[in-house]
């Protein structure tokens, strides 16, 4: 069983997202440790990209800030290597195809394996294009996480059957960002997923409150939260880790209470 699947074996998962280097890499490191202490099941680490087309304004801002602070892919690999000395929960990179492609997929995934990255999410690499990266992921034991969207319909079966690690269920149309209401019929999407695979499925996009986390974890295997955490970083800057820890703890409890 991959480390990622194992992370779902102990009840409903809560998955926080951080953009590496927002506002600086030291704060990211402290936030990762805070998330781990608060009971996060796995952590999504964003490698900033200049033009993040799947992100709403909050995470776009974090990407920009991180790049302006001089964050690079190599510095993030160093950060992960350091973090692995005392954090053992799975790490999943979230970035865009060009970041991996320009680094060289073989070199990038080998480096992932070296420093202890367990999975990678590339929102601009759909099912049709995954062969570009999948062989390198498989070779280096890194799960290429697949996404399912409200518009996937007849594609769900195909995507689910070939998925590795966990399935990232996109809750709503549009880009990342908090939403007051999630109206997608996630129940039938999860039903279609379940009919085709037994790998875990977590829901992301638009989740910010413990109530939402509980509801989403209730109908799936976990909840993913990004923008709401980035907002805490925006508000508190380098003082954010304690606030992130408190928030993640409340979300972990909410998600757990669903299962």
């Amino acid at each position, binding site marked *: 069983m991959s480390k990622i699947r194992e992370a779902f074996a102990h009840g409903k998962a809560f998955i926080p997202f951080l953009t590496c280097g927002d506002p600086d890499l030291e704060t990211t490191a402290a936030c990762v440790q805070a998330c781990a202490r608060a009971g996060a099941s796995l952590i999504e680490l964003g490698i900033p*990209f*200049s*033009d993040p*087309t*799947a992100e*709403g*304004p909050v995470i*776009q801002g974090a990407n*920009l800030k991180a*790049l302006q602070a001089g964050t*690079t*892919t*190599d510095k993030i690999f160093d950060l992960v290597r350091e973090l692995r000395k005392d954090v053992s929960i799975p790490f999943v990179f979230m970035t865009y*195809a*060009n*970041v*991996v*492609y*320009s*680094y060289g997929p073989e070199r990038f995934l080998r480096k992932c394996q070296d420093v202890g990255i367990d999975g990678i999410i590339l*929102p*601009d*690499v*759909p*099912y*049709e*294009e995954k*062969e*570009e990266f999948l062989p390198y992921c498989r070779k280096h034991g890194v799960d290429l996480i*697949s*996404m*399912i*969207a*409200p*518009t*996937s*319909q*007849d*594609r769900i079966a195909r*995507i689910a059957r070939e998925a590795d690690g966990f399935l990232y269920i*996109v809750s709503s*149309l*549009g*880009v990342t960002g908090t939403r007051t209401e999630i109206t997608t019929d996630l129940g039938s999407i999860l039903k279609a997923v379940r009919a085709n695979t037994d790998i875990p499925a977590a829901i992301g996009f638009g989740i910010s409150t413990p109530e939402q986390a509980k509801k989403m974890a209730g109908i799936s295997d976990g909840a993913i939260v990004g923008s709401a955490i980035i907002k805490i970083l925006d508000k508190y800057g380098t003082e954010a880790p304690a606030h992130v820890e408190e928030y993640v703890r409340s979300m972990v409890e909410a998600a757990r209470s669903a299962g």
Partner: protein
Amino acid sequence: MSNGRFGIHGGQYIPETLMNAVIELEEAYNRYKDDPAFNAELTELFNEYAGRPSRLYFARKMTDDLGGAKIYLKREDLNHTGAHKINNVLGQALLAKKMGKTRLIAETGAGQHGVATATAAALMGMECVVFMGEEDTKRQALNVYRMRLLGAEVVPVTTGTATLKDAVSQAMREWTSRIDDTHYCLGSVMGPHPFPTIVRDFQAVISREIKAQLMEKEGKLPDAVLACVGGGSNAIGSFYHFINDPSVRLIGCEAAGRGVDTFETAATIATGKLGIFHGMKSYFCQDEYGQIAPVYSISAGLDYPGIGPEHAMLHDTGRAQYVPITDDEAVDAFEYLARMEGIIPAIESAHAVAYARTLAPTMGKDQIIVITISGRGDKDCAAIARYRGEDLHE
């Protein structure tokens, strides 16, 4: 690997949310592209509404002045709305209408594609929203007004460099949030499959006409076809029907901005490397970590860090050649064509005129160059005046 490859380039690198939308578009396009009724309707729009066929004009004074090859100008600037962009937009709007879409969204750089989309939306009774980099809304204020006049909403994009690439990103984001009733009317031969093919097919009318018109006037093929390249829609339209005629040199003129040895350039073939962005694999201006470069050109329409995948393939195979043209050269050519032929070209098209001034004298008098004048230059007058140190108030 997905459909829609041009050599190793192209593909569909987009969020899962959009996959069924591009598949639906591809199916609809395949259904209508050879449908006689659809094509009759489109030809009627081209001819009666857009004013096609556009003229192929023999530039006698320019030919005499340069003292080499005969120069013909393909006058896309004479189309309704003043640029080649209308060809693609009428095709896509008609297709969207057949698909039951009621709303068009588009990105625009110089504003020509935005104006064309707003025009087609008005004509066909569709809602229209145009995303335009805030920087460009300032450079092209007149076009912003034209779009609003035509009933479109113009949304200034403030993220990133606030230019064309950011407008494309924002239009893609908007499309993921509203797909059911909305067609993304992409303006160039770029983005995910099937856009590079659809846009090329609708623009191929340019080379189809050039071939027939030149055959009538000269009884032969041209020796070279020149067009400016940003994403590359007027260039691919000008090249397409000559790709299998190896005697015809195909030359795309990129925007070098302040020079290919500076950071203020948008010359993708000259300075970019292979990458994946905006739905396609192609060449992009980027740094060593794959961060997309903040490109620059005096021309808002060529101010894009990538190039369409079919051009990337034509470059790889050597079938087409891509040359960088600086702001200075383009502005000189803008003024040159105005004085020489009484034709004010778009600053984008002036990049192609600039290269013709270098190329023509090296060719024989029995040879022929066709330059596509992709758009007219009225929109650029204030900016060029500023470039020359004169402040115009319209």
